[in-house]
């Protein structure tokens, strides 16, 4: 059976633009955290981990930060939409092998949309101690679509997207190229 494809997508960020934005975000993090001695980066599973890994690598290799603490946080069991979708929520692994007690935490995710994932992450991170402060970094900030009063401290690009549209972030290490699409469903 043939189905007419009405889905279209346009490029929001090219590989080159992502490259420049990552450097800018790294510099902004450096400006606020200097040597990262009291700071930990936390990538939110599953899609925030690529961005977090990339930034940690950049800070180490290009900006010569000696010690970057990087953790991966799964928020599945803290989400507020349990039993509200038609499928169970699939968990990814959490890997935080340090205490966040008294630290400055930077939560990292690829797209900020309703803010509910970040709400869950704020609760989940407390299982690992009481951080001194928490900041939020996202590559894409979808404006006007928030359900909760949550805003990023660092943003790659702000986008006005309507609800039928979806922002798709692809990474070289996973999908073979760095690119951000705006997909019309």
């Amino acid at each position, binding site marked *: 059976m043939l189905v007419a494809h009405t889905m279209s997508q346009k490029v929001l960020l090219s590989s080159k633009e992502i490259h420049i934005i990552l450097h800018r975000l790294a510099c902004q993090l450096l400006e606020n955290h200097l040597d990262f001695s009291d700071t930990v980066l936390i990538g939110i599973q599953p899609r925030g981990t690529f961005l977090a890994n990339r930034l940690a690598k950049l800070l180490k290799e290009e900006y010569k930060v000696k010690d970057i603490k990087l953790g991966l946080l*799964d928020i*599945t*069991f*803290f*989400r507020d939409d*349990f*039993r*509200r979708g038609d*499928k*169970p*929520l*699939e*968990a*990814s*692994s*959490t890997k935080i092998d340090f205490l966040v007690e008294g630290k400055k935490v930077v939560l990292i995710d690829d797209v900020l949309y309703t803010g509910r994932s970040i709400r869950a992450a704020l*609760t*989940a991170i*407390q*299982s*690992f*101690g009481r951080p001194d402060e928490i900041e939020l970094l996202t590559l894409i900030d979808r404006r006007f679509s928030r359900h909760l009063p949550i805003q990023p401290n660092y943003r790659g690009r702000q986008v006005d997207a309507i609800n039928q549209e979806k922002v798709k972030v692809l990474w070289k290490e996973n999908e073979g190229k760095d690119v951000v699409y705006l997909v019309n469903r």
Partner: protein
Amino acid sequence: MPALSVRHLLGIKYLNEKDIQLIFETADQFKEVINRSIKKVPSLRDITIANIFFENSTRTKLSFELAEKRLSADVLNFSASQSSVKKGETLIDTVNNILSMKVDMVVMRHPNPGAGIFLSKHVKASIINAGDGAHEHPTQALLDSYSIREKLGDVAGKKVIIVGDILHSRVALSNIFALKLQGAQVKVCGPKTLIPKYIESLGVEVEPDLRKGLLWCDVANMLRVQNERMEMSYFPTTREYTQQFGINKELLDSLGKEIVIMHPGPINRGVEITSDVADSSQSIILHQVENGVAIRMAVIYLLASQLNT
């Protein structure tokens, strides 16, 4: 994401291999959670679970209760010995009364085989079988396989011998189903009177000689001698049983290889297994208990996510 193929966990018999893998992968995440300093997640805060035990239990009941609390579910506990069951209430009436207090899930242990299956046909709630007579004990088999996977990397292709009272054991039956489903080889060993007829039809071999069986296996699962289920004598004396089917340190050391020792508990120390074996580095008995909480969290989480809001 894949979902479980079942709405209740009544027995391993009703699961497929994918279900088991999904439960294990989910349990991996919960195992990480229960090793945090704050061991609790809020997933099930709008779910109420009743633990209904018509038979005594320590480990299983505590393990289920802890798993439920770690998931933030509300928990009701009910033991038949202190209830209206004594006054002659039927099983369906008892459970329906509990359910009318808005309970979403029932964890039940019952002395009659098939009690969970019967209940699942008559009440509106997700049922988890925590042991039904000599039939099945699915969460025990799942945690046993999970512990083997943790210790040896995989269950497929491993050789497992189940030793002891196979006839009365729901742990043995569920384990055989689970291990065969995952591609392990299974043998059973025990007094002839305690090996069911036609056990070969499940695809397992009978090994009458414990020493030979241990030389063959990677894992030995030592079952408890269930005196309470034996209304007649199945073997002459406990001492004779121990001599033929009990594991001691000398036997273990004489094998010339490392095997994994498991026991579902409670242990009759000095009967099926001596203390120095139970407490040795080859024994993973206490890991089984720890994994039990993670496995039960995974099962409850996956079943609860299929309940209608």
